[in-house]
């Protein structure tokens, strides 16, 4: 599949991870045990020092100039080795969008700080009544003198409590003929702006990874508008398109598969013909996902724009991730019912994390456009029902 040169490159990346990311951090990532913000930031700094924080960015903005294949090898090698994920919001979603639509001042200020990890971004898109149906969002922004005054509420704002910046969609023209047409994108300084209240949303697993964010007459400088007013909808499509590209989740699926094989082996389940078959089925699905992704990459390399293949990879990548966490739970059996470190099974000290992983993974078929929405998009692209 890969050339000798590409394999050499993969080896270089692997060695870098092993020498610059502590083994205990990688072990925690591989076990889906959760790492601290400090551990993530340390790894960000290490990558940044090497010039690898944003390989897919253009050289002029601090990227690497690598081919799509190299970027792919890099990302998957990191995921396979258990390197912490740097997060998508700044590096993958906002960064490329600002490069195309941001003002020169915005690019100069924000791109280097995304690259270095100095700014941590979150995404303010979803609202209580607007999840998959973003166009119905209600948060308002009015231009008063040289500030946008923002009022409303965002929801499912992942990591808002660790971020200092947010890119948000706000309604700037309530009278627009279509709801999509009255939306703008603003850059909001969460750390230094009065009127912002970030409240935790606690999931059943006991964790706070997401938030509600309330805006009460929050003043955002006019210069923080991305691109033109009332064109936020278009930019949001670009942002989400960028997210989608990384969402086949091949690296994490490969890691989870390795974990499943290890645990199944320890539990004697690789001797069970039915369980063997289910592991093989999952591994074959991963092989198919990789084959499609490689084909897509080859076409990207040839200048094509990835189309519905990306939606397909999102759907099946997330379904596979859910299948793998479920198989992990089954491999652990009743021990997986235990919750929290104090319930640790003395003989299977990893088992109490597995149901939590399984639960957490339910979100991957919901966010970034639910799998139902993905199928709608493919259907629409195919022109199905056009003869209605």
């Amino acid at each position, binding site marked *: 599949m890969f050339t000798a040169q590409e394999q050499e490159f993969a080896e270089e990346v692997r060695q870098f991870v092993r020498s610059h990311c502590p083994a205990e951090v990688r072990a925690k990532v591989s076990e889906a045990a959760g790492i601290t913000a400090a551990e993530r930031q340390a790894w960000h700094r290490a990558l940044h020092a090497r010039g690898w924080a944003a390989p897919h960015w253009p050289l002029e903005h601090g990227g690497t100039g690598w081919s799509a294949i190299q970027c792919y090898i890099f990302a998957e090698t990191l995921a396979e080795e258990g390197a912490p994920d740097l997060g998508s919001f700044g590096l993958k979603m906002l960064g490329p969008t600002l490069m195309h639509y941001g003002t020169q001042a915005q690019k100069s200020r924000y791109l280097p700080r995304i690259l270095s990890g100095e700014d941590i971004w979150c995404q303010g898109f979803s609202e209580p009544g607007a999840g998959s149906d973003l166009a119905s969002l209600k948060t308002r922004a009015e231009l008063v003198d040289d500030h946008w005054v923002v009022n409303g509420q965002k929801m499912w704002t992942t990591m808002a409590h660790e971020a200092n910046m947010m890119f948000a969609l706000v309604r700037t023209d309530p009278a627009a003929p279509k709801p999509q047409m009255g939306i703008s994108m603003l850059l909001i300084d969460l750390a230094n702006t009065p009127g912002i209240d970030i409240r935790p949303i606690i999931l059943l697993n006991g964790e706070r990874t997401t938030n509600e964010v309330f805006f009460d007459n929050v003043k955002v400088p006019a210069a923080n508008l991305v691109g033109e007013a009332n064109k936020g909808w278009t930019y949001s499509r670009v942002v989400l398109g960028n997210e989608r590209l990384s969402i086949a989740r091949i690296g994490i699926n490969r890691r989870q598969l390795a974990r499943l094989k290890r645990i199944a082996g320890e539990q004697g389940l690789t001797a069970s013909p039915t369980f063997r078959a289910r592991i093989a089925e999952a591994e074959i699905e991963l092989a198919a996902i990789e084959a499609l992704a490689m084909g897509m990459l080859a076409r990207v390399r040839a200048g094509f724009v990835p189309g519905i293949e990306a939606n397909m990879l999102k759907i099946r990548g997330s379904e596979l991730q859910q299948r793998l966490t479920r198989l992990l739970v089954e491999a652990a059996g009743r021990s997986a019912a235990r919750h*929290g470190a104090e*319930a640790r099974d003395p003989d299977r000290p990893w088992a109490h994390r597995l149901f939590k992983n399984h639960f957490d993974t339910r979100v991957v078929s919901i966010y970034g456009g639910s799998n139902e929405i993905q199928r709608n998009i493919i259907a629409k692209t195919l022109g199905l029902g056009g003869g209605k």
Partner: protein
Amino acid sequence: MTISTFADPAPAIDQTDDSGDIRDQLRQSLETVLARHYSFEQRRDAHESEARESAAAWSAYAELGLLALSLPEEQGGLPAAFADIAMAAETMGGAMVLEPYIPTMVAARLIAAGATPAQQAAWLPGIVKGRVRAALAHEDDGARPVLAIRHGDGWRLRGRKLTVAGGDSADLLIVSARLDDAIALFLVPAGAVERRAYRCFDWTGAADILLDNVDLPNDARLPCGEDALSAALDEATALACADAVGSIRAANRLTRDHTHTRRQFGRSLDSFQVLQHRLVDMLIDEAFAAAITDTAIAACDGSDATARMRAVSAAKVRVGEAARLVGEQCVQLHGGMGLVQEYQAAHLFARLGLFELSYGDRNHHLERYAALTL
């Protein structure tokens, strides 16, 4: 023969059967009790409190006679069918009750069926009155199975039991142990063992039980053996199925309500055909799960052990399929809301997911079923 039409005025599947009148009254009483004791907040408080379950709820179950069902009248029991206990389990599954009703009733029925009159008199009245909770400690730690040996006039037990449902709050444990190549059962007061209590992901309680040379009197041993244990495990499995059916019904109701209320792209979610068909498949699985559980419950009241094992394994497999579909789709159709601690969807997902891991997984029961029918 009645002619059916497509326009049926009663869409919901009605699960009442002919022995239903008394059972229905009991169900309504239980629902009233649960409405009083099992609001979302009360359940959370019970989970977070030191005692962890609501003592008030347990007393209420005792007052309703739920802890007396089918037990000998001379010990304070009430005449009842196993299906009455299953009705209680199903109703509690709908409210996601945290107290160990199933473990206690399974242990009590095992005592009623297999213990000496003296042993019955020692334990059953306390259970019936709600003063004693019990649990069956069967699943061994592979590395340290529980062994029993003769020791003086009595018995000595050694080994470890893992993930005993209800073991955290049980006053009495019925412990299975290897004794001379057979399995024997012992009544062990919880005070005699070391236990590590904890919560499972669905907030129900469990414990690991360490028996570090526990000495017991001679009359701690139940006269019954493996057959009784096998029947008790089947009863526990069948009641777990009933509990899961209750949770499946609740999850379907919740999901239908949510998709009916919630609007997207200017329409209610339940007006999208893809979601309609998903809701229909969830309802079909509910109907099949409920029906096959009824069969298993009836088989537990019968005298044919093979028929019982077959029916119980069939129910565990089929209800497991339904639990998986309904649990996952309940979360999926709730969107992000489905993952949040403050709403029921995630709790139902957890309870249904853990059901699949309990009392033997799908593979175990498929293989047992195949061995009985192939």
